[in-house]
């Protein structure tokens, strides 16, 4: 397991940021600036501290013990070939795998220091703070407005719903395109617009983290570019983890990149974290030859 320990002073990062209360509409308080440690360009808080997380489905091992930290207000990309456990990894962060029969997880996933898989943890509450956008746009068969307003309504955030919907749609760079037809069906939008609507729907409840599972793989290049632009804006407010099989996309949008691969040394093929570092290191001077082969396109 290779993990480039980044520019972080772990002394404050784990405890200082408390998880947000259930219904809190005010913006997240920004922690007071800390004195910078010499040599550390930026202080970053840890959002996820993943320790030896391994996943099996029934008897099939999907992901080998994985240890890494995901930092606040960064875009972290997860890249790797098909079947390497990228999706398993990201879906384990907000317990979306729980409904898969035979799913078992080992190790620990600590979110702001709290175990995501602890007995006392409620997975609905987990997902309320850790939102997710999927590969295929999946708007509800409702109007554009109702898509965005649905989760706030159901979570009791009914105060000034119109403003909240507008804010979310602006946040997803969709407002100007749909402001005159909020009552139109979401299914009448193009694929790229639908995906931005799904992002708007996710940020309407003001989550702490956004997980994006190949959000642009079903989209054309123009729509992809608009999603990528969006990510640069969103990371100022949210912590973003994005799975992508498009390496250029990772290079363009991500601050940190994790490269997963299939470990074929044993009898089974198990997804393994090969290397995790700053994006320019992964793409410029990776430490592992497997990473180098993959990012230079030499991987089979």
């Amino acid at each position, binding site marked *: 397991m290779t993990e480039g320990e980044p520019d972080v002073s772990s002394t404050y990062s784990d405890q200082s940021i408390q998880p947000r209360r259930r219904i809190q509409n005010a913006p997240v308080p920004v922690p007071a600036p800390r004195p910078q440690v010499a040599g550390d360009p930026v202080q970053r808080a840890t959002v996820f501290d993943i320790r030896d997380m391994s996943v099996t489905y029934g008897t099939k091992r999907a992901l080998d013990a994985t240890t890494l930290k995901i930092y606040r207000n960064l875009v972290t990309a997860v890249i790797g070939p098909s079947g390497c456990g990228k999706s398993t990894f990201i879906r384990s962060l907000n317990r979306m795998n729980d409904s898969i029969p035979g799913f078992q997880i080992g190790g620990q996933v600590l979110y702001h220091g709290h175990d995501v898989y602890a007995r006392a943890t409620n997975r609905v509450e987990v997902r309320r703070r850790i939102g997710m956008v999927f590969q295929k746009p999946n708007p509800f068969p409702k109007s554009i407005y109702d898509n965005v307003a649905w989760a706030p309504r159901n979570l009791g955030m009914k105060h000034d719903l119109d403003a909240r919907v507008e804010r979310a749609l602006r946040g997803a760079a969709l407002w100007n395109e749909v402001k005159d037809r909020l009552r139109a069906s979401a299914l009448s939008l193009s694929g790229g617009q639908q995906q931005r609507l799904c992002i708007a729907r996710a940020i309407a409840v003001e*989550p702490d983290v956004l997980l994006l599972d190949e959000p642009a793989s079903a989209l054309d290049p123009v729509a992809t570019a608009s999603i990528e632009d969006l990510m640069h804006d969103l990371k100022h407010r949210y912590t973003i983890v994005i799975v992508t099989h498009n390496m250029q996309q990772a290079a363009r949008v991500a601050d940190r990149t994790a490269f997963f691969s299939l470990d074929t040394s044993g009898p089974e093929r198990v997804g393994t974290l090969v290397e995790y570092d700053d994006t320019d290191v992964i793409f410029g001077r990776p430490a592992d030859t497997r990473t180098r082969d993959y990012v230079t396109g030499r991987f089979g």
Partner: protein
Amino acid sequence: MTSTAHSSDRLGYDPTAPLTPSGNLRRRLVVSRIAQGGAVLAAILAVAALAVVTYDVIQQGASALSLGFLIHDPPQFGGAGGGIRSDILGTAMIVVLGALMATPIGILIAIYLTEFASPRSRLGNALRLGLDLMQGVPSIVVGIFVLGLIVDVQHKDSGFAGSVALAIIMLPLIARSTQEVLRLVPTALRDASDALGVERWRAILTVILPTAVGGILTGSILAIARAAGETAPLLVADSTFGPHLTFNWFGPMPNIPVSILTASEALNPAAYARAWGAALVLLAGILLANVGARLLLARSRRRITG
């Protein structure tokens, strides 16, 4: 030609030969034609049976049919004239009460099976098996069961007992068809609502059921229409020879299927004609419900698939 000879050595056939059937393809084409013809013939036979039944009922029943037939009660002591108003109203009341009992329970069972029971859950599997068995229970057995459960306690046949019997017949049909429709709702919608941190029951009420409502209604209408024509349980639980409508659920209530039976067995030609007329009314009602339900289903499919 040398290149052709070379290719056929490598491939085992001559790639430059005309593109007409070769080898055993000719035989396979014949087999395929026969199988296809058999399937088409079977389909035609099935539709033909329906057509013959419908034609016969229309031909025999049309002469009895008139506005008066629908709005007059049967003659009190047999004889000519009269209509089947009380039978129509009785059947409607029995079927509506049965549907009110079976539909909510059936839909809730389906919601439990598709949304909450994991595929490996024992209770879920037991329920699925139970529904399948329930669908296979002969309707006369349902009738006898209700006879023992309600009629023997009450000491008389009743429309209520008939409703319970029909509800038992509808229940597995409604649960099964609702399950099928709920399965059509894309998993992506459930994922989307899960990922927003909203509890599943809210997603069921505000996303999944509204998406599937057309299909659920369709399945329920088909099940209700199917039960509306059941005779055996009504014969046991609600057979009545008093022709006038009682508005009391707990007394014997006239209904179309039993009237068809008694009228067709009467020696009186007028009653016999009335039986055909009643059959036509019942058939028309059920066919109309079917067609309406299917139109509804087509609309809801479009809605689900976008």
